[in-house]
């Protein structure tokens, strides 16, 4: 019996991972790719269907122009070439959740191809080559009933919901990602995360990973370090968060290394990622006999986006992420090192959103990279999945700017927010966290400090004003931190005549 996995460092010492990603993006068009049915998520089963998306005999598809537009947007944003002429193709295979038993997709004529994207990990920029982005339709959704696991094995029957059938998808396929082995998983995560931001900025998808509107498949194989011998690859499906992208790839590297070290063979197969247990399990074995019998979809005329249209779309694109980063760094006045921390901490978008609410970049960075990033790390969630968003950060910072809170108290407010204790005001109330701004109590505390520290007062009077710091500390302690240190210093200086 050998171990299921080896340590990642050991795996990477012996093998170089070869990795590619396929990302499926559900578009946010109002209607489906080939019919007029609505696309809202969560409707009762089979209520958003028609003869076309049910594949009834005689029904025909018609291409959704919005879907094509979104595909072109994505292609352009990934620096792809846009085909002057391309076709849909049928991918033929039988599965009950696919109404026609073929998927209308694109094969050797994708709408967008030969692109690239850059991601930054640990301050290093990595270029991801994009092979293609193509249009296709989603399938229905099967629910297997009666089994223990929700899988088809052991189920008594299955239910199919065709609401999802025909929802437009864009499949983005990377070329082999060539980065230092130790960075592979992190680069993959960064790519998917950045892709999410890009899709949101383009407004082409809701990108709700929890609703499956962005789904990632990771292809991983190993080759002995420093060689070019290609290994057998697995395709891990169902990787539905940024963290999982990194974890699933890391897991596959360690699992495959264990198999190879034990003299075993990697099977060419689909594997399923399990978020809860953090492992992948074997799915369907793929073989060379898999033959989808692709051929051009005869029910659809070719898609031939005019160059004028493509340029019109290009003109509407938001700023490219790499250029935007340069601009933001300049606007914010961050050093390279600071900017690197921001990007590595996935804090770029939260900071942008927070500064747009009137908070200084420095303050926004302080909260997102300090308090909130630490909490996200400890609780194993992504930064933007926290219960605290840009609006809350701006609210707390406003209280700091007004002098109602200092940083130390603000930290406690965040703690309360993350614990779900209510609004900042409620938390301050409950925890008694306001600064004392009345001069009266502060002056009393100063008097007490002076009385208790005659030696310090002497030092100050003998021409060492810096010694007053000790008195400020004493006052702050006396006030249990709920005082504005600058204010204390001002009052103390006046009292001591310095």
């Amino acid at each position, binding site marked *: 019996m050998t171990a299921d996995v080896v340590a990642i460092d050991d795996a990477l010492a012996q093998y170089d991972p070869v990795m590619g990603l396929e990302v499926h993006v559900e578009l946010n068009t109002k209607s489906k790719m080939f019919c007029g049915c609505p696309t809202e998520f969560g409707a009762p089963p089979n209520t958003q269907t028609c*003869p076309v998306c*049910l*594949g*009834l*005999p*005689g*029904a*025909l*598809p*018609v*291409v959704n122009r919005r879907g094509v537009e979104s595909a072109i947007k994505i292609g352009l944003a990934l620096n792809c070439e846009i085909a002057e002429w391309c076709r849909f193709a*049928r991918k*033929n295979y*039988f599965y*009950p959740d696919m*109404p*026609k*038993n*073929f998927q209308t997709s694109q094969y050797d004529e994708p709408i967008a191809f030969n692109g690239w994207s850059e991601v930054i990990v640990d301050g290093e920029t990595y270029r991801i080559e994009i092979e293609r982005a193509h249009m296709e339709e989603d399938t229905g959704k099967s629910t297997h009933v009666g089994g223990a696991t929700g899988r088809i094995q052991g189920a008594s029957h*299955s239910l*199919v919901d065709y609401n999802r059938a025909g929802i437009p998808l864009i499949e983005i396929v990377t070329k082999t990602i060539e980065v230092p082995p130790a960075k592979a998983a992190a680069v993959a995560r960064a790519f998917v995360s950045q892709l999410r931001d890009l899709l949101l900025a383009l407004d082409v998808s809701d990108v709700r990973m929890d609703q499956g509107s962005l789904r990632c498949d990771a292809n991983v194989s190993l080759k002995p370090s420093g060689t070019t011998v290609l290994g057998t690859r697995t395709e891990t499906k169902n990787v539905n968060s940024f963290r999982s992208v990194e974890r699933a790839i890391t897991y596959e590297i360690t699992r495959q290394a264990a198999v190879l070290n034990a003299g075993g063979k990697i099977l060419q197969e689909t594997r399923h990622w399990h978020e809860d247990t953090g492992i992948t399990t074997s799915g369907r074995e793929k073989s060379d006999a898999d*033959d989808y*019998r*692709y*051929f051009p979809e*005869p*029910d*659809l*005329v070719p898609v031939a986006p005019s160059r004028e249209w493509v340029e019109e779309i290009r003109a509407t694109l938001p700023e490219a992420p790499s250029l935007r980063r340069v601009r933001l760094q300049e606007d914010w006045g961050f050093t390279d090192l600071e900017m690197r921390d921001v990007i590595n901490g996935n804090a770029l978008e939260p900071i942008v959103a927070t500064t747009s609410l009137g908070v200084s970049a420095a303050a926004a960075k302080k909260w997102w990279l300090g308090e909130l990033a630490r909490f996200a790390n400890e609780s194993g969630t992504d930064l933007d999945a926290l219960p605290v968003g840009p609006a809350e950060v701006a609210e707390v910072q406003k209280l700091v700017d007004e002098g109602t809170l200092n940083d130390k108290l603000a930290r406690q407010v965040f703690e309360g927010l993350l614990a779900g204790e209510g609004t900042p005001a409620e938390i301050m109330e409950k925890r008694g966290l306001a600064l004392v701004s009345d001069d009266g109590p502060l002056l009393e505390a100063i008097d007490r400090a002076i009385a208790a520290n005659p030696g310090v007062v002497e030092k100050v009077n003998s021409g060492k004003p810096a010694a007053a710091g000790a008195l400020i500390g004493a006052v702050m302690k006396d006030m249990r931190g709920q005082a504005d240190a600058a204010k204390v210093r001002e009052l103390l200086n006046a009292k001591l005549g310095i």
Partner: protein
Amino acid sequence: MSDLTRKTAAELSELMASKQASSVEVTQAHLDRIAAVDGSVKAFLHVDTEGALAQAAAVDAKRAAGEELGPLAGVPLALKDVLTQEGVPTTAGSKILEGWKPPYDSTVVKRLKAAGIVILGKTNMDEFAMGSSTENSAYGTTHNPWDLTRIPGGSGGGSSAAISAWEAPLAIGTDTGGSIRQPGAFTGTVGVKPTYGGTSRYGLIALASSLDTPGPCARTTLDAALLHEAIAGWDPMDSTSINQDVPPVVAAARNGDVSGLRIGVVKELGGDGYQPGVEARFHEAVELLTKLGAEVVEVSCPHFEYALPAYYLILPSEASSNLAKFDAMRYGLRVGDDGTNSAETVTGLSREAGFGDEVKRRIILGTHALSSGYYDAYYGQAQKVRTLIARDFIKAYEQVDVLVSPATPTTAFAIGDRINDPIAMYKNDLCTIPSNLAGNAAASFPCGLADEDGLPVGFHVMAPVMRDDLLYTVGAALESALAEKWGGVLMSKAPELVVNR
């Protein structure tokens, strides 16, 4: 009043417009005729008596209310069972769809209804339109009204037999490789395959998507043109439909002037393998057109000889994929659903039981032709041939306005004659297939009876894409010249069927 079933659609239309007959009367007369003769012809799979009479009554009510009605309002029609009609059984001649009632109307049916045309019922056909005789129907063979021991052609044998047996003045067919024109030729009727994209495929149960074309069947050229105009035109539901005005087919059918028209006789479509009586009638018709002022030349289309093999790769390839949806999951026949079998097993058992031999043969052919490693040699090559055939047409149309040939190499053959010889059966469509591959317009018009067997011969006319009007010009010229010779339409020479009372 003389027998309403012997009238043309145009005549019936006039009778109704002048209130000499109601649509209910006209419809009832045809329903009676169906009841009387369809036991021996077997043109219909389903007669929608109630639906037809209700439609007819609605047209009569509109007419009584003084509403403006289309030229064919109230005229009955037989619909090939491959087009969906909401709530009416639609089988495409297959057991796998037995009992299925579509929840939607095909575009053709929508337009028929909008035109006030009364749909009598659904007509028999080879299963999924795969065949040239209706012998591949899962519901039995249709008999040719000219000789009940013969096939009526196929796949749309039911539609052509229905009009030939006076059961309906009009019918709708679909033509993938000749399924309108060949039955038209075999039954002495007019069958038109419009330009691909000229009529909508929405709601047509697909055989081969890049070839299928719905079109009109009638006993006269004018009737066919009127029906053509009613169903044709751009349809946003069919992305392969052509967004252009319908060619002036009715005007052409009324005019029929061929003087100065350049007609090309296709050299490759004739000679060896063609029945002498067919060739004789064909050449007489060409002579007649010459006398009417047409300029006739011989034209060569060298790649037509590859049309048949190319067709039998493209069609099965598309069909194998189109028929994949029949998996017993959502509609139609379901076999073996006993609570233990997997979905995959149920799909397999249902397809095994639900599809006939010819359908299975073509699914296997198509699956093979699309398989990796074979795709380039089969499907890929066939597409190249298709391009060459289209170029043959383009070159020919630089010299002439229309091309002509016999519609079929022979007249209607006997039931059972070719059913076990697929290649002999496939060869029926030699003349008709090139137009499907190129997507242009074509039609068959009756041009007499073969001397050997006294059976009808079809005169095949091919016209460029969206010049469907030229078909009608030639058809109308030929029809009026021949009617003079025969003293009526060819159909008037058909033997009377035994009537069951």
